[in-house]
């Protein structure tokens, strides 16, 4: 199945093209207002694009009514009927289609069993837990056996403690459904931990479409780098010198030879300003100056997080965050030495914010 959409709607979505593969779990992620939900509503047929085309499989669906598109949407607020039992909620779309009663019973029971809510079908939604409500809404979508499922921020309204559990359950469920799924979220963690592929959106434009690990390890631009990952990526401005085949990153507070991990092409010429990016988990710390590669920094704040702690330290003018173990011996104002994992740092053009290509090592 191919879904291709091209629009030229200037305000919300700016001429985007996307292809979601058959039976793929595809996540649209971005900050509020990025356009993820609008894309979903256009696929569902709830919004009409100003220009562009939407295909489901080989079929152009622009002029099809939502009910004829063979898609099912699960909304953020679930939109269940409070005055109908679980059974009647699930049966509703089938009754509308005038499916014979004995087939309805069979199909409702089948999805309810799969979603493990078959024991509470005679109860009303208000007696369901958050997770059960979620599954009820999914069951109502599944019972129609659509080609495409559209899930609009299904975990957004759920308590944090339950959400962490729901994430793995929903991911597993979606795998068992084995259909094409398009899922929107503002939560980078949800996108990262659940999606097979992710489209990162900002301001109505697609910034990167890739597998989660590729987005995390090789972000295309600074927006993607800062959106994905919590605690957030560090951005450190520095100069780059390519000299005698060596690539050196330098700033008042450090000088780092990255020739063996991130050599820039010599054709780039002399020194240039760039942004070095490194994730907090790729910085290690020492209490003494133990190698040429360590950089002296001043502790700003230590935030214990249970199994780890988040250190904020000033490296020159930059406030750098590092995810560390321990840390109770660090005091604000004290000295600490940072060491970057040179295989994990990224170089971005300071002006264009685009990732810089490096020569293979």
């Amino acid at each position: 199945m191919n879904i291709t959409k091209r629009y030229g709607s200037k305000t919300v979505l700016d001429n985007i093209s996307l292809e979601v593969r058959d039976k793929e779990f595809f996540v649209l992620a971005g900050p509020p207002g990025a356009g993820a939900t609008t894309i979903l509503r256009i696929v569902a047929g709830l919004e009409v694009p100003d220009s562009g085309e939407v295909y489901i499989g080989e079929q152009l669906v622009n002029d099809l009514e939502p009910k004829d598109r063979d898609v099912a949407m699960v909304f953020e607020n679930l939109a269940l009927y409070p005055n109908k039992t679980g059974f009647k909620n699930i049966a509703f779309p089938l009754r509308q289609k005038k499916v014979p009663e004995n087939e309805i019973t069979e199909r409702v029971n089948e999805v309810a069993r799969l979603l493990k809510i078959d024991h509470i079908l005679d109860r009303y939604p208000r007696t369901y837990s958050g997770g059960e409500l979620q599954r009820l809404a999914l069951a109502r979508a599944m019972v129609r056996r659509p080609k495409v499922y559209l899930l609009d921020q299904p975990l957004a309204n759920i308590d944090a403690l339950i959400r962490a559990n729901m994430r793995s359950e929903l991911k597993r469920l979606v795998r068992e459904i084995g259909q094409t799924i398009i899922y929107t979220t503002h939560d980078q963690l949800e996108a990262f931990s659940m999606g097979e592929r992710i489209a990162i959106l900002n301001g109505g434009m697609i910034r990167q479409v890739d597998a989660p690990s590729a987005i995390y390890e090789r972000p295309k631009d600074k927006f993607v780098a800062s959106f994905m990952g919590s605690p957030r990526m560090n951005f450190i401005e520095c100069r780059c010198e390519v000299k005698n085949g060596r690539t050196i990153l330098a700033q008042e507070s450090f000088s780092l030879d990255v020739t063996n991990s991130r050599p820039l092409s010599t054709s780039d010429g002399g020194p240039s300003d760039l942004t070095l990016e490194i994730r907090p988990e790729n910085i290690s710390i020492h209490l003494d100056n133990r190698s040429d590669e360590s950089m002296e920094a001043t502790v700003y704040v230590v935030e214990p997080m249970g199994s780890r702690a988040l250190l904020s330290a000033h490296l020159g003018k930059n406030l750098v965050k590092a995810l560390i173990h321990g840390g109770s011996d660090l005091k604000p104002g004290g000295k600490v030495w940072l060491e970057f994992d040179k295989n994990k740092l990224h170089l971005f053009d300071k002006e264009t914010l685009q990732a810089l290509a490096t020569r293979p090592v």
Partner: protein
Amino acid sequence: MTKVIIKGLTKQFGKLTAVQNLDLDVKDKEFVSLLGPSGCGKTTTLNCLSGLETPTTGDIFFDDQRINDIPSKDRGIGLVFQSYAIFTHMTTFDNLAFGLKIRGTPQLEIKREVERMAEFLDIKEVLHEKAGKLSLTNMQKTAIGRTLIIRPKVLLLDEPLSNLDAESRNVMRTELKRLQKEVEQTTIFVTHDQLEALTLSDRIAVMSAGRLQQYDTPETVYNHPENKFVANFIGSPSMNFIDCSLKLSDERAYLVNERFTLDLTSGRDRLTEFANSPELVLGIRPEHLNVTSLSDLPTQPKGSHMSGSVFMTEPLGYENIVSVQVDGLMLKATVPATSSFEVNEKVSVTFDEDHAHVFSKNGEEPAII
């Protein structure tokens, strides 16, 4: 110099007891979090401190002064809410200056104090902008600044980070932590977010159903939870709980279930009193579970091991969460980001016995080990 003492505080709304017999002492300059799920009584406690609510019974002292009967405005408190209580039509400067103006502070001194506060909060650049136009973090900084500037005896913060988006919340959390270290202001902070409480507090008061469950430093609350409720509420992903039975012999003590036997002889003294109600719960944090693919093991492992199959993996970037189904039980383990497991892969789960916790089944009863 203000310490806060709460003695036997109870607050009832009709038949509902929101806070039950709460004792809490907050030292001078201490940052204490009231942490718990909605309905645990944390906000009611804060409201009793601020004077928005009157305790049904119990006493509240600021230093040696009982404040129950002192009107809110005379208690010397500073309050910051979830919604930014700032005047959006006024500039940042006027917002910061407001409290000093109504106290009749001389103009020159107001200017000096406001500039000092703006410098401190890093909002100097936006001092002359309308507060309504500020970014969310700067609005919240302004709200905190206009409260701090009047030098309250006690600063009360009611979920001040809840309205911020995820990234601003991280930034503001770090700033609040720095503020706390530098101002040395007695602060009581209400939150339902365990991470905020862990990162910010000198001590955390964990509450549930109107009762205090544990009151200790973040490290102790995390590493030595006093009961199952606290163990479950603090830490993400949550602690794993496994039902077990206690087997006592003359000299030894074991925790057993179908899958493993755990030698707890070193804790035998504490366990003997449970001889008559031997159904207990073993608790292990996700970072203390080790998951190994069975295909990587030459033979079936011996000792405290459970075999199961991978239910799902969730990459978090800096590490992965693996959910493993062991019969009817779901265990969550955090593993290095570099490890990879397939769904349905057969795995062995072992755990670090030094980090095992033992609880009774009732969530509020004290931890045994």
